[in-house]
Structures are given as C-alpha cells and as structure tokens.
C-alpha cells in the first residue's frame, strides 16, 4: 500500500513537469475545418499526441471526420480510415484482426500496432452502440474513444441519448410546453464497464494530462479499452468559443462529469473534485442550451447530479 501511495505522489508531481514531456510531434495537424473553440478537435489532438506514431485510427462519420478529411486534404498523420456512421468499432475490429493475422504470417513488421476507433456521442451511444458492444465483447486489442459533445452536432444539434436533461436541441427544443431534452444522459462508461473489459475511463479536454495518461494506459493494455471524453461544443451549446476549456473544468468541479477510471473492475477517481463541489448553475449559465431552465428545474437537476455523484463515490470508496 505504501508503495502505491508513493507512485501516486510521484505521478502527481510528475504532472507538474509533464507538459514539457508531452510529444512535440503533431498527428492531428492544423488546417482542419473545426469551429472556433471546438473542444472535440482539441481532445482529438491530445489523444493523437498520447498515441504517438504507432496507431491506426478508424473514425465514425461526424464532425471530426468531416472537418479533417475533405478530399484531397487530410489532417491526419496517423493512418486513418472512415467508413460510415455506425461502425467505427466494427471497422476497427476488422483492422485489428487484419493486422494481427498479417503480423503472425510475417507480411507486416513484427510489432504491436494499436487500433483506435473513435466516434461522437451519436456514433457511440446511439447508432454505433451495437457495433461497439460487439467489438468490446469480442475482446479485440483496441481502444475506443467517444468524443461526447452531447448531441448530433454535425447534422445540426439534434438530441442524442447522451444529451443532458434539460438541454435545448433542435429536436428537443425548449418551448412553451417543453424544457428541452426530457431524458437523463445515458451512462456510457457504466455500459462499457458492464462488458467486463480491462479498462474504462472518463476524460475531459480541459485536463490534458489526465486524458493523455489514460490514453497511454489504454494503449499499453492488451485488450479492449474505452475512454469517454467530454468535448465542449460552442456551436451546439451556444457558449463562447473561449469558454471551452473553462466548461471542461466546470463540468468536473460541479461533479456533473467526474473524471475516473475503472481498471479491472476497480473504480478510481483520477481528478479529485473540490471538497465542496460547485453548484451546477455555474456550469449551466455559460451555455445557451440551458438558458431557459427555471430555478426549480436547475434544483431538480442538481439533486440528480448529487445522487449520481454519491453513487459513483460509493463504488470508488469500496476499493
């Protein structure tokens, strides 16, 4: 136990100096067409830095595909393929199977190449859930990263099953008889954890080292891993483009999106929220999508956030 604590302390200290050690090379390069202040593009860039050269990426249809691969241009220095919306995971599993057998047969260099599949929340929690579940269940040596901006942003801000309660979207708009989206956000990390895969984590682009450490950890684990990365979307959330990083911090400080990991079933908080969590209103008020909410509705959401946070803490404290 003592040793474990020492390592944890070291890691904490390490994070103070680590920015200097972050990969200088860019694999998701400038010139792509993401909106100003796009949290997802920032997160993808951080992911590729953590992955380094030795990865193959399969990408679902969505913002990140559209903005990065407008023929004949590409923003990708990693080998990258897009096939369709629902199947980043199944394409990834096929790539993994292909590389595995070709390596075994000596037709490609004899070294491990990590397959990473990525999609937005729609491509992950909705239309891509079956393919993702299948790929995870089959135990491929791959990492899936969901970049969650909480609605179908590429098609124009329609609600997904990852849209938070109360958010106004173009298919769940706030109106005279509606407060916006009526459903609670689907808990993807728990669904993935239920697959019994070796590693599941949440991340935020506003905690770059935490995110990159998780990507690196997942890459080193042989088997299926899942990271759910919060990605602020100024266009869809009607937030200021310079508030992206702030939002990514507030969502953690309010306890709405805790940063934790589940390694071999063991829950661990990786970024401790403040002892006294900030009220969710601090987070909500910066975004146009929540502007219509009444104090009562905000209170209702706060109660749910508190309950969910406590549930998670129980799992964490168990270990």
């Amino acid at each position: 136990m003592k040793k474990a604590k020492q390592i944890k302390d070291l890691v904490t200290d390490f994070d103070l100096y680590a920015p200097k050690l972050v990969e200088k090379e860019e694999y998701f390069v400038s010139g792509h067409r993401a909106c100003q202040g796009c949290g997802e593009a920032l997160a993808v860039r951080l992911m590729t830095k953590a992955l380094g050269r030795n990865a193959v990426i399969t990408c679902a249809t969505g913002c990140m595909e559209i903005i990065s691969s407008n023929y004949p241009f590409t923003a990708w220095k990693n080998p990258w393929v897009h096939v369709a919306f629902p199947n980043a995971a199944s394409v990834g599993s096929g790539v993994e199977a292909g590389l595995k057998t070709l390596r075994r047969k000596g037709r490609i260099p004899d070294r491990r190449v990590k397959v990473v599949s990525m999609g937005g929340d729609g491509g992950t929690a909705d239309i891509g859930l079956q393919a993702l579940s299948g790929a995870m269940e089959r135990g491929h040596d791959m990492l899936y990263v969901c970049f969650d901006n909480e609605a179908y942003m590429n098609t124009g801000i329609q609600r997904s099953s990852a849209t938070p309660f109360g958010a106004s979207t173009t298919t769940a708009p706030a109106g005279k008889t509606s407060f916006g989206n009526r459903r609670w956000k689907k808990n993807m990390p728990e669904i993935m954890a239920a697959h019994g895969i070796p590693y599941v984590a949440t991340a935020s682009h506003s905690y770059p080292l935490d995110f990159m450490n998780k990507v690196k950890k997942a890459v080193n684990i042989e088997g299926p891993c899942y990271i759910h990365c919060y990605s602020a979307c100024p266009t869809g959330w009607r937030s200021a483009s310079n508030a992206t990083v702030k939002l990514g911090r507030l969502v953690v400080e309010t306890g709405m999106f805790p940063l934790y990991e589940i390694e071999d079933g063991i829950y661990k908080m990786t970024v401790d929220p403040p002892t006294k969590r900030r009220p969710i209103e601090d987070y909500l008020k910066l975004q146009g999508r929540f502007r219509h909410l009444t104090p009562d509705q905000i209170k209702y959401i706060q109660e749910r956030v508190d309950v969910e946070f406590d549930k998670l803490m129980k799992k964490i404290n168990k270990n």
Partner: protein
Amino acid sequence: MSKRIGMEVAIAAAEAVALCRIDVAAVYPITPSTHIAEHLSDIVSNGELDAEFMTVESEHSAMSAIIGASTAGARAFTATGSQGLMYMHEMLPVASAMRLPVVMAIGNRAVSGPLNILNDHGDIMMERDAGWISLFAQNGQEVIDMIIQAFKIAEHRDVMLPVNVSIDGFILTHMVEAMEMPDQEEVDRFLPPFKPFETLHPDQPVSMGAFAGNDIYTEISKSKDMALVNSKKTILQVWKEWKKQFGRSYEPIESYKTDNAEILILTMGSMSETAEIAIDSLRAKGMPVGLLKLKLWRPFPYDELKKAVKGVKVLAVIDRAISYGGSGGPVCGEIRSALYDERNRPAIVNYIIGLGGRDVTPEDFMMIAKAASQAEKKAPKDRYVIYGVRE
C-alpha cells in the same frame, strides 16, 4: 490434382474459400448461408487455415469488419443472404468506392415480408447498383470455381473491386453434388498472394474513406463506374486462365442448344439446370428453342447479349425477383433496355417464377416456351407475368 468429391455445396464453398488462404472472415449466422460460415470456422479451428475468424454481432459489422481487414491489407471474406445482405447494404457501396477487393458468398433467399427463408433473387437484386462485380453460379462446381476466380478478379490491379457470388439458397447451398475440388498447389498456382494497393500501417500513413464534396463526388462515381465496366476484360482473362488450368470454361452468357433457335429462354442461377431439361425435351419434339444462362450480372455483358440474341424471334427472360411497380423482373428490365437500340431485336417476354422457394420445374419452362412462341406474332398483353400464381 483436383479431387472428385461428393459434398454439400455450402461446405464445398467453405473449402474453396480456405484454398484461397484468406486472412480474415467475419460472419453472422443467416439461413441458408450458415453452413459456409460453420464449415469455415471448422477449418480455422482445426488449424488447417491460418486466419482470423470473427463472429460479429450483425451483418453490418460483418461487412464493416472485412472492409477494415481489407484496408489493413488482409484477404477477407464473408457470407450472407436476404435480410443479412440488406442489413449490410449501407456498407456495400462503400466497399466498392474504397476499391477493396473483398469477396462475399450469397446464399440467395427471399426478403421479408412475409418472412421466408427459401430461395429467390430478391436479395441480390436490391444490391444491384452497389458497384460490386456480381456472379451467378448454376451448380456446385461453379460455386467452387467462382469463389476462387472471385479473389483473383477482385484483387487484379486493373479491377480492385469487391465481388459477390450468388448461390441459390437451399437449391444449391444444401444440395450434395458431385464436384471437382482443386488442390492447394493448383489454387496457389492460379491465385497469387494478395498485394494491396495501400494499407493502414504506421510505416506509411495514409487516409482512407475521405469526405468528398460536390467538386469531386461525380468524378469518383465515374471512376467507379469505369472500373466496373472495364473489369469485364479482366474477368474474361481470368476465365480464360481458369479454362487453361482447370479445363472448365466460363462465359458472361453461356449458350445451351442455341443453334438455329428461334426462341430463347434466359435464366440465372440454379434454374438454368432445370431449364436445360426442358430444352432437351422441347428440342426432341422439334421446337427451335434454346437457353441463355446469364453468369455475369455486373458488369452487365451488353455485347455478349446482343450477339447471343442475333436472329432470334422471341426472348423469354425468366426473373426470380420483382421490381415492384417497375419493370416487372429486374433482369428483364435490364435486357429490354440493352436491346432497345437493336434494329432487329427479338420480341421480349418476361416471366417471374420461383419466388420464396416456389418450385421451378422443367414443365414450367415448357409452358413458358410454348407461351413465348406466340409472342412473335402477337405482343403479350402484359409486360410481365408472375407465373404460377394460385388464384
């Protein structure tokens, strides 16, 4: 040395796939293609074939996975039919647009609804415009041969397109037939190792499956069409090589007793064998009738068709699917269009038979031939007839 075997055709199909030394197979169970997958998994499990056998959670993922495997540089295969084929529909035009030489065996089966697991061609006809090379086998031997040919055609540098082989569900897939199975050395000699054009590997990073706007989509579509049209040259070349090595000949449209024929029946798939029996019998009675067997559905063999019907008075096209509210039989619609510009084209009649596993017998073809023989003098009332409807 090829070996004379008696075997269920689906099992033989799996043996043929294994002889092609595939690297990855991804399959999802669907009757009547399932025996292909099952036997292939036996072969892999017994260590007779070094491949990854993926039991995916849907046909959509089966096609997605072999697309992924192919981008990695692997030789990849799947088998499906009917609902499964339609479930992977979204992925089929992507495979051809990405120019990935994957191969798919289709155990042809009627599509729902109502649910029906028996044979017709409704499934493959729905995928007609996906940009795949599409072959139709008439018996077990052709299934073995076409699967091996399919990889060679698909992977040829002048082609680089996916290929599907239609195998009539149950009528072929579950039939035990006498066939010749080539041995490994022969197949190795015929089919060189797969040399992919580009692969997904960090040693030489490439981006695949890019987004294309209105400035380039038309050009990409045209290049795909050209690739498919031009693939016929390679298909004919591969069939020539096949004949040279294995002695069995293949043509886009195979003729049977067409000398001096005034009436021709055109069929696809296993019913061609049934039709032969009818032709033999009618010829014995002195009726000038012959048979055309369409083996190559895509790219469509326009020149061969025009040549085959020269001087013929009536062409009866037999479809095993319906283009609802449209041309009647999808094959006949194609053929009418193909012959429209011909000065001396035959009268064309269209019969739709054998839907959802309804038996097709030699007697049916005899009836059709007799009815068709009247069409030269008097055009039929209907553009197509759904044959044998119980009223």
